[in-house]
């Protein structure tokens, strides 16, 4: 057991790589999710078709196979990715597809009356989306995004298969060096758990902020003078 604990610098290096891939993959997934999710909620048929194409293809693709394909197959046509780039791209494309479904659903769940009020104020289509619909949809997106983020973090374990020295990769090393299988993997589980907890906290924080923006909970220090009315602005 103590041998395992002595390997903690390696473990922490591995954890850092895992966090990096998680963050980069999540940023890419978020950008793709927003772009293709908004397209999926658009009126234009071709935009919705683009959304369907992306979602159906990458939602069905296993991150591992996608990563192998990017890493091993594309060099055959002259496209070379570093292991890190292949890993981030694979995870981002895969989770971006799930995220796009969340974004599309959230946009469609914003009451139609909000869209109509934006038209009545003569906001242009892009302004309606950016200033009225999306900010309200974000509140609906965050909880499922929190789940996806943790799923993505756990899925990063596959990157050890393209020789990236992430947490799982380090675990295998330490296990091989010490022979302490049970202790090693127990410790690694704990580290994954801690990372997941931190991510969860961050998402919660964002949730609270958006809820305050939407007036669903009082701002710190501000007293509610009048209780929220019935028949108020639709949620």
């Amino acid at each position, binding site marked *: 057991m103590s041998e395992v604990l002595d390997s903690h610098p390696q473990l922490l290096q591995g954890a850092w790589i895992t966090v990096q891939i998680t963050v980069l993959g999540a940023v890419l997934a978020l950008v793709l999710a927003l772009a293709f999710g908004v397209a999926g909620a658009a009126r234009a048929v071709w935009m919705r078709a683009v959304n369907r194409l992306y979602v159906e293809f990458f939602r069905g693709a296993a991150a591992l196979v996608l990563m192998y394909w990017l890493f091993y197959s594309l060099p055959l046509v002259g496209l070379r990715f570093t292991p890190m780039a292949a890993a981030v791209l694979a995870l981002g494309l895969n989770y971006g597809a799930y995220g796009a479904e969340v974004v599309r659903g959230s946009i469609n769940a914003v009451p139609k*009356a*909000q869209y*109509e*009020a*934006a*038209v*009545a*104020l*003569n*906001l*242009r*289509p892009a*302004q309606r989306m950016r*200033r*009225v619909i999306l*900010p*309200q949809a974000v509140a609906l997106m965050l909880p499922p995004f929190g789940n996806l983020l943790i799923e993505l973090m756990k899925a990063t374990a596959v990157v050890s298969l393209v020789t990236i020295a992430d947490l799982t990769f380090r675990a295998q090393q330490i296990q091989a060096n010490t022979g302490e299988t049970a202790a090693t993997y127990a410790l690694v589980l704990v580290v994954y758990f801690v990372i997941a907890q931190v991510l969860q906290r961050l998402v919660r924080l964002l949730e609270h902020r958006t809820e305050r*923006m*939407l*007036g*669903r909970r009082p701002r710190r220090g501000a007293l*509610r*003078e*009048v209780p*929220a*009315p*019935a*028949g*108020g*602005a*639709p*949620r």
Partner: protein
Amino acid sequence: MPPTDTTPAVPAPEDDVPGVPLAKGAADPLPHGEAPGIRFEKVVKRFGGNVVLRELDFTVAPGERVTLIGPSGSGKTTILRLLMTLERVDGGIIRVGERPLSHMERGGRLVPANERHLHEMRKQIGMVFQQFNLFPNMNVLRNLTEGPVHVLGLSRDEAVERARGLLDMVGLADKIEAHPSQLSGGQQQRVAIARALAMRPKVLLLDEVTSALDPELVVGVQDLLRDIARQSDLTLLCVTHEMRFARDISDRVLMFDQGQIVEEGPPDQIFGEPRERRTRDFLQAVLAS
């Protein structure tokens, strides 16, 4: 379901009583200047197989204030939504001023309007909804400045000044930083009225704007709208079941049934001596409810 005309005996509660000191000299927040008229020409609107408007014709003169009454489902909201470009016509033409709203001219022919034309036409038109529809992701001030800044191109300072003037007028100057969910229904509707006026429309559409309010808040909002109607040059189209309000606010009342105008005339005549059977029945039903 439709609210009655009976003025509640309950005085408006304190949180909803501004003295409505409208139009304070130089900083008059209300729109002024020539307002366009409106013309419906053989307008058809259907939802699936349900023909709601069947070749409807009517005109509203520039600056005229018209109230639409009629049973639920008779197409009143549809008329306002067509004017706000929230629905598209299935036949006929709507004109605002001399220009077609639902169509635009292309090589001497009228074709269905594109977004650019609709944007141009919407500059003249504002709407207040039954359910207020304030933006819950913005505080009161931003609800009022969003359009002026991002659509009209006002500077933030100009927009804030305009918003302050309007909030003053609707008696909510102290709620400028409040969040919509912190306001009563009456207050939310006042903000919604101010938000519409901040765009300086020439035509204002009011769709049962007090029917979602608690009874004791109705009169305050109605008084506000009455003063706005009297002190501005707006062309006003108003749907309401409240007869006192309709009398106060309108030059002419149109009685609708099944997408057709059954009877029209000055409010005193329509409410005092309705000629048509259907008008009498409708008014009786409203009074009884």
